[in-house]
């Protein structure tokens, strides 16, 4: 079964993150907690971070939403873990460019996240993909 144009959106790796989310749950002793939702559709994320010495030591998420929002959250926690705060924010800016279909800085390896490139072609779904990143940015801001 195939819907050809949809295969650019629903890549295998996205579905894998959706079905087998990485870093799902909450950090017991995390120092940053953010709840964010997408009021137009009901997607929500509960993100906990452990930020120490300017580095995101640990990142976990819980939430409820579509494949794109949950896969993006899973990928985001995976890629920011161990990064210093500035790099994490830089990654978020790159991801935002990617979603807007702009040229983006490819000097930083975003790993699985590249698979989300196709979302840019589905404007109604961009907010799904950016929810977790916005939460992460807000969390680091609060720090």
């Amino acid at each position, binding site marked *: 079964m195939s819907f050809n144009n949809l295969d650019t959106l*629903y890549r295998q790796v996205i579905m894998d993150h959706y079905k087998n989310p990485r870093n799902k749950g909450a950090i017991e002793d995390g120092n940053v907690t953010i709840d964010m939702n997408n009021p137009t559709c009901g997607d929500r994320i509960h993100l906990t971070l452990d930020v120490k010495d300017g580095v995101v030591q640990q990142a976990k998420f819980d939430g409820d939403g*579509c494949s*794109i929002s949950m896969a993006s959250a899973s990928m985001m926690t995976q890629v920011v873990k161990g990064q210093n705060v500035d790099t994490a924010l830089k990654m978020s800016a790159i991801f935002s460019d990617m979603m807007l279909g702009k040229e983006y800085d490819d000097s930083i390896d975003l790993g699985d996240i590249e698979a989300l490139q196709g979302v840019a072609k589905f404007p109604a779904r961009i907010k799904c993909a950016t929810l977790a990143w916005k939460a992460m940015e807000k969390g680091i801001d609060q720090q």
Partner: protein
Amino acid sequence: MNVNEIRRQFPILDQEVNGHPLVYLDSAATSQKPLSVIQTLDEYYRGYNSNVHRGVHTLGTRATDRYEGAREKVQRFINASSTEEVIFMRGTTTAINTVAQGYGRENVREGDEIVITHMEHHSNIIPWQQLAKATGAALKYVPLQEDGTLSLEDVRETITPNTKIVAMTMVSNVLGTMNPIKEITEIAHENGAIMVVDGAQAAPHTKVDVQALNCDFFAFSGHKMGGPTGIGVLYGKKNLLNIMEPIEFGGEMIDFVGLYESTWKELPWKFEGGTPIIAGAIALGAAIDFLEEVGLDAIEEHEHQLAAYALDKMAPIEGMTIYGPKDPQKRAGLVTFNMEGVHPHDLATVLDSEGIAIRAGHHCAQPLMKWLNVSSTARASFYLYNTEEDIDKFVAGLLKTKEYFSDVF
């Protein structure tokens, strides 16, 4: 009812979306517009665009006649006892807020109660939350039955002599439940409360007779019934509108303006501050003409048939949960559901790639989503221009989506 003939009146339906003929199943969010409505807007702006109720020139008179003529159409459409009871507003939201502020602030006190239900749209929840907060009144919810209907027993238990306002939807935008408004209004009145009806999902689909319902206020939107966006109606009983203060002050609604004091025009104009929604109101009149020509009874019957057909085709799909009353005669023309293994947003995206437009999300009813214990649902809603063929395509799309999502894992 000749659906093919009706479809020809809706030019938007004749197009391809993502390479497929458009199947529009989101009329509960907003309906499509018949040619007559589009032409009415065009004629107004090309031929007699002018402000109303002022000046003596010919275009102004023409615009005023048509604007007030539209009010007469609305009066007949809902069987109000006079045009003084028909106020043009932006939509249902503005209408309910006007009652909450204009009537509520003066007549609700600490210790009083406002009663709504768990199936309300946000526009019939938040104005009452705000009123309750401002006055110290208690906001109470009538619980729902397992099948998403209200029991009159629960209604009787929730409404008490302390209740000042009962506000309920006539048709749920999520469950499709049709509430017994007439009976609930009686209970409200026995307890000395007024009855406010959210008619946004009712007026487009079923005959409304505000005098038979005996409700005190009735709000609806033009854009869900073939009219343009930005126009709606607040019906109110004359005696209540007379004691209500306007909530918008300015031009158009005044009688005499002094330096420190002013007086208001008589009904209905005292509630229509500023230049009114002239083109919108006239085009709403055209939408009413259109619906009445087809016949509200025929439209309602057609939607029941479509809902029954859709329920029949959807129920056997494995992993399908359908919300609301199971009996198609007890529900309006919409089906809200979830399909196991596919999130509603993903479902809506996949169907869109097949040219099928449905709604996914919380449908502006977060408390109801909580009651259903889901974060979001998918909804297909039907109107007079939909066909069984539309539903066949939709159901085929559901099956393909299911297969697609099971394949990729």
